[in-house]
């Protein structure tokens, strides 16, 4: 499985991701020990999977309202937010709401059409993990977090209170 960037480092991805496209014909029995499922499936399958000893996380699409995920946030350690296209910015709002309004403190992972030049801004909005598009160079992408020497709200956005990803920490 392709590694991802988490907390400013390249790490192995321990989670299996079920995409929205796989929704209709879902078979979770062979699922791995750590499974990300779309929000719509979470309610149905969470209990079953948990009893099988699996850890579950939620995938939110651009149309999903963060409010709908709110009841589950206390039970999960990871929310993945899907960007179907790099021009679709709705996931930024979702991330900000999860962090600021719903106080979600777990891993917030950007998945989908994620490009190197977006990492700085995604991080500023609360993402701390990034599953980049396959053609993106992960090592080179790490520099993105140091793209700007100064930011108007340094130290005030949710992520930076949780341990800043910057050149200093790399």
């Amino acid at each position, binding site marked *: 499985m392709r590694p991802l960037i988490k907390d400013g480092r390249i790490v192995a991805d321990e989670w299996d991701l079920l995409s929205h496209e796989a929704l209709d014909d879902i078979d979770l029995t062979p699922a791995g020990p750590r499974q990300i499922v779309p929000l719509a499936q979470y309610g149905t399958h969470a209990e079953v999977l948990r009893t099988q000893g699996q850890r579950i996380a939620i995938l939110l699409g651009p149309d999903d309202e963060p409010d709908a995920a709110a009841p589950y946030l206390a039970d999960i350690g990871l929310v993945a937010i899907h960007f179907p296209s790099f021009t679709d910015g709705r996931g*930024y*709002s979702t991330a900000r709401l999860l962090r600021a309004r719903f106080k979600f403190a777990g891993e917030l992972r950007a998945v989908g059409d994620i490009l190197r030049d977006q990492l700085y801004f995604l991080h500023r909005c609360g993402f701390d993990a990034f599953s980049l598009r396959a053609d993106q160079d992960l090592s080179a992408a790490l520099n993105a977090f140091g793209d700007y020497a*100064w930011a108007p*709200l340094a130290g*005030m956005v949710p992520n930076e209170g949780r341990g800043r990803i910057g050149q200093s920490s790399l």
Partner: protein
Amino acid sequence: MRFHDIGARARLGDEGEPGFEIFVGGGVGRTPMVGHCIKPFLPRAELLNYFEAILRVYNRYGRRDNKYKARIKILVKDLSVEGFAREVDAEWRHTQGAGSLIPESTFETMEAFFAPPAYGGARATDLAFVAPRAENRPFARWVERNVAPHRHPGHGIVTLSLKKTGVPPGDATADQMDLVAELAERFSGGEIRVSHEQNLILPSVALRDLYALWERARRNGLATPNIGLLTDVVCCPGGDFCALANAKSLPVAAAIQARFDDLDYLFDLGPLELNISGCVNACGHHHIGHIGILGVDKNSEEWYQVTLGGSEGERTRLGRVIGPSFAASDIPEVIERILQAYVRERLAEECFIDTLERIGLEPFKLTVYGERHEAAH
């Protein structure tokens, strides 16, 4: 400001505190719209909170099914200005006073980035400025057109024109850029601004240095005294360079500049904004030119549609199409006729755009289309 998705106009509140007037829903392109005010006064500390609220409302309700509709302006139209403003306020209430509130200390840090240069003792009466202006007409003309007043006495704001006839508007060579950098270091505290009119601005030059600056700029093709005049054309790269274009724009700009190369005539015409776009995406901002030209494709031929009366700034408005489009070769003559109508109708000292607003499009249409226009009605 009113032609962007979000516009912010700096202003002072009732108590003299700094803040912004906020506009949303503007834009050019295939659906040109003038933005609307949704917040007459926003304290500056709330700027990011409020912008986030705008984006969240757009992200929640904006359309994604069609990329031409996926814009704030479309949503503002759908929800109405009042409806959009209500949604933004409701979202803003969650963060107001907290969230991304910008602390005063951050403003102080930002202000330090814009510390004024050391002005020294320059005066408007310095002989090094006054003498050449009195004796050298080309220099005096350049000062009149290309140097704007500066709030600090003895200084001026210099615009280096990138609108020399025959050079694509806004283009500069590497050597010219090196020279501009050097001029900025020597005369303007190391600062250069790029204007959306496609020129370069040296924001703070002592008047006594102007002559030396002008001589070097002029020798290098950067001192055409045409800022704000007809030949200061704003133009996109058009069909010569751009894959999206329906028509070429640079040759049209060049033909107009070549036709109107008499400085006395240009100065007599006074302030006039001409904008040219090679397609409906409107990179040349033709909707907001006093005269706008839009390249269109009709049966695989390049045609040009003319709009009049667009305006940015205080009197923001969209230009209106005057009638059927023209072949490229007709455009200089069409411009000539528009200008004839203006010169004929203007009152003393009246600018083109003021005459146009006073008398309307009809006299211009008549002069351009003559009988053809009459017959069409």
